[in-house]
């Protein structure tokens, strides 16, 4: 399919109509229709099957009875905890007692180091996607086109987690969050302006990522519809501005930037230090590429905990403490300098965007310049609350007689599990 190239033409017309604007020669605008962690997939097919990225396949399915036995529960207790007929095992929120498997039955979700590192299968391949963030071509992955020094430790850490593994746009994690975005949960638009005559080769380019309150519209095929209009919504938190240049249609950062974007993940915040972009303007009008940078990994971990530890663990075949240890181990950046604690990890997000019209916040004009709207934004709102309240990675059952915890009695008075209970 050939998408619009009309955005540029319209922008030209507008620039001519408003000669007073301290303006760019050209403006191009898009709406993000897909974004996902850039996780290179090295297998032919299948999610868990071996590939060059993960030669032994993904992190394996976990024997939870054994995990609990290892944590000090009797085999009988462990089996009963996992029995679907156990009334303490919520079909929606999982078995809360699974949390209490640390030292002295501490909650391992909020105290991950209370248990020894259970491990997480890492990526062992050499190919990776993203951007060279540190200018060092000796470290990191080799890119799809042979470029060296791609920094993406996030991928190295989590690329064999089956939630994130899969061909482009097909991993279950990406499907889940992009589905939400495409159904209207949030909208991110991209604006690029340049001062040169040729948008494809321009030394002075500015790029802005902004939120919009106008929802993505789906077309007759269920895809994202082209050429819709989105008004920028000033956001105190999510905004990313870059200086860049274009070469043969590829927009590349000329300087690193500290930015915050809306992340397609449980944690929602993608805070990127020393962020860079590499985005290709394709002949069909679409935009495709990467946004990279170093992101704080503790909030990422917390995102999974808050998404309900027992559910994430059971559905995605990891032990969350293993994820914690792996992120800590692979973190490769400290904002305070090379000697500081590595609180950040190199990361890249794959972005697909379609031509769209982007308007100033009042909706009156097409944007023609890259500027920060943060000052005019209302204070940031809390991440939208889920319909249930999560405490320490668990949803307590308010009606239960016995709550999960370090001292909970596990087995029912009569040991035979004969009833599902009401």
């Amino acid at each position, binding site marked *: 399919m050939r998408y619009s190239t009309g955005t540029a033409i319209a922008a030209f017309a507008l620039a001519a109509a408003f000669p007073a604007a301290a303006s760019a020669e050209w403006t191009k605008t898009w709406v993000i229709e897909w974004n996902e962690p850039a996780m290179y997939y090295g297998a032919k097919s299948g999610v868990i099957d071996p590939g060059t990225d993960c030669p032994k396949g993904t992190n394996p399915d976990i024997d939870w009875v054994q995990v609990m036995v290892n944590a000090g529960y009797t085999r009988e207790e462990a089996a009963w905890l996992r029995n679907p007929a156990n009334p303490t095992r919520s079909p929606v929120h999982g078995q809360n007692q699974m949390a209490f498997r640390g030292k002295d039955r501490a909650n391992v979700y909020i105290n991950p180091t209370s248990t020894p590192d259970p491990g997480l299968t890492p990526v062992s391949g050499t190919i990776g996607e993203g951007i060279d963030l540190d200018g060092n071509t000796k470290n990191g992955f080799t890119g799809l086109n042979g470029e060296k020094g791609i920094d993406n430790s996030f991928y190295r850490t989590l690329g064999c987690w089956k939630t994130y593994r899969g061909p482009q746009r097909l991993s279950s994690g990406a499907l889940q969050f992009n589905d939400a975005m495409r159904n209207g949960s949030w909208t991110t638009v991209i604006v690029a302006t340049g001062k040169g005559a040729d948008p494809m080769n321009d030394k002075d380019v500015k790029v802005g990522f902004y939120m919009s309150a*106008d929802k993505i519209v789906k077309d007759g095929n269920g895809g994202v519809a082209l*050429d819709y209009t989105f008004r920028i919504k000033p956001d105190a938190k999510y905004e990313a501005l870059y200086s860049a240049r274009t070469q043969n249609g590829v927009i590349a950062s000329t300087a690193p930037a500290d930015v915050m974007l809306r992340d397609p993940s449980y944690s929602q915040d993608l805070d990127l230090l020393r962020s860079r972009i590499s985005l290709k303007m394709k002949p069909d009008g679409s935009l495709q590429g990467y946004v990279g940078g170093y992101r704080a990994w503790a909030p990422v971990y917390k995102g999974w905990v808050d998404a309900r530890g027992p559910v994430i663990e059971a559905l995605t075949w990891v032990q969350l403490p293993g994820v914690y240890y792996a992120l800590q181990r692979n973190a490769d950046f400290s904002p305070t300098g090379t000697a500081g604690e590595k609180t950040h990890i190199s990361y890249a997000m794959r972005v697909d965007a379609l031509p769209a*019209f982007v308007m100033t916040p009042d909706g009156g004009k097409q944007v023609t310049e890259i500027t920060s709207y943060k000052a005019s934004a209302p204070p940031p709102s809390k991440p939208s609350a889920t319909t249930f309240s999560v405490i320490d990675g668990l949803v307590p059952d308010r009606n239960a007689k016995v709550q999960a915890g370090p001292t909970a009695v596990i087995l029912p008075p009569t040991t035979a599990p004969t009833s599902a209970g009401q």
Partner: protein
Amino acid sequence: MATKAGLVWAALAVAGLFGAATFTTATPLPVWAQAAGPVTPVKVGVRRITETQYRHTIADVFGPDIKISARFEPEKREEGLLAVGSSQLSLTASGFEQYFALASSISEQALGEARRAETVGCTPKDTRKMDEACARQFVGSYGQQLFRRPLTEAETTARLKPASVGTQQSGDFYTGLQLALTSLLMDPDFIFRMETAEADPANPRTYRLDGYSKASRISYLLWDTTPDAELRAAASSGDIHTSAGLRKQLDRLVASPRFEDGARAFFTDMLQLDGFDNLIKDPATYPKFNQAVADSAKEQTLKTTIDLLVAKKRDYRDLFSSNETFINRYLASVYKVPYSSSNAWAPYTFPESSERAGILTQVSFLSLFAHPAGSSPTRRGVKVHEIFMCEPTPEPPADVDFSKVQDSAKGTVRGRLLDHMENTGCTACHRRSDPPGLALEHFDGLGQLRTMENGSRIDVSADLDGKKFEGAQGLAKYLRDDPKIPACLVRNVYAYGVGRPTDERDEDYIADQTAAFASSGYVLPSLMAQIASSPEFLKPVIPRLASPSAAKPL
């Protein structure tokens, strides 16, 4: 208001259609009906009310928040108008059930606890018992609004029975009233507009429409709803039979904001916008098409038309050339322009470079009259002739080989149609039907601008009746200057109002009205008032009566 009315009547004065002394709407008796004494009243028209008329009427009588959920009986287009086709329709058995369920639901809502005090103008002595006086007042009041005339004593009494039976059985007076109201809503006198001709007092051996029938005809034309109290009063007093009385009512109706309802209903019918109810587009070819786009396209055309012709009182022919319109976020995507407003709709003017001109280049016309996965110069051309010039095209012969025309992977539609035209059986019609459509070929089956098809540049030159024009804007100029365009609107307004097709007896009348329309500067409200005030519009056409056995018992 004064200027509006002035405009209307100035037009009429120019046309000289009637003088005070000769104002008459009487019809001489047909030969077969001539008898010695004064004529007896005759029903001259039984027309099923349309869905919008039903909805408007219920909203007027019971309030706009009454929910109306039903499958209305399908309507039928004849001579380009549903108003003409549907006047031939009755109610099927399954339709009867649907209307019955709807009538019950309206009665329940109108007499539900929340609003019964407001609905019923009187309070029963005991809500558990039948109160005949109150029931009678209720039936009389709603009967005349729904039947568009006062009820006869027999008609009222008939409703008191279900009211009484229902009250007795349920022990609730309002349940009884519900039944009475349901009975009114199911009556043929509500579901059909019944027009009656009576003896003309000035000449008792000739007919005229009775006052209520006149009120009804005017009200449904101008407001698409049942006559309001003032109009009914004019019918009751006989004022409506005088030229001053009629003029007063027409002025009032045309000046009212509710005239917009009437104009919308008329253009929805004439422009065949009901086609959006079942329009299908191939999502692979036209991914941008969805329900929201369909609804928006229909609304765009109505908004444009009403704004131009009713609010701004512009020349009707500007509809074909004006680029002033309204868009919303969905349509902006189809037109591939930014939507620079925070409101649901915003005024918009198509630039010259858009190649658009007037309503023929809006998504509604271009997508309605196209194929699911392609444009169709023939369909568009046929519809330009049919809708705007009142020139129907015959159905194609049955034995045509369409394979070449349908192979849409090659060349342009024009090329394929030219091949088709080599078939002499097709040439005569296609030579007339296709040119307007060919001029619109820069718009695909959804109405999106394009200049190429399958790698070939699309030629949009056309030649109709020896006049050459280029593209949509050329077509717009051609149509704007074509005298058939205003004449066809006149014909449509008249046929829509009287509910029957025009025939050769009407030609002089159409010509006169068209001349008056021209003198008014082609202003729509003037035209509608002018037609509504013309003796021909209110003249009954006396049918051959059914044999007396018509009233045989079931």
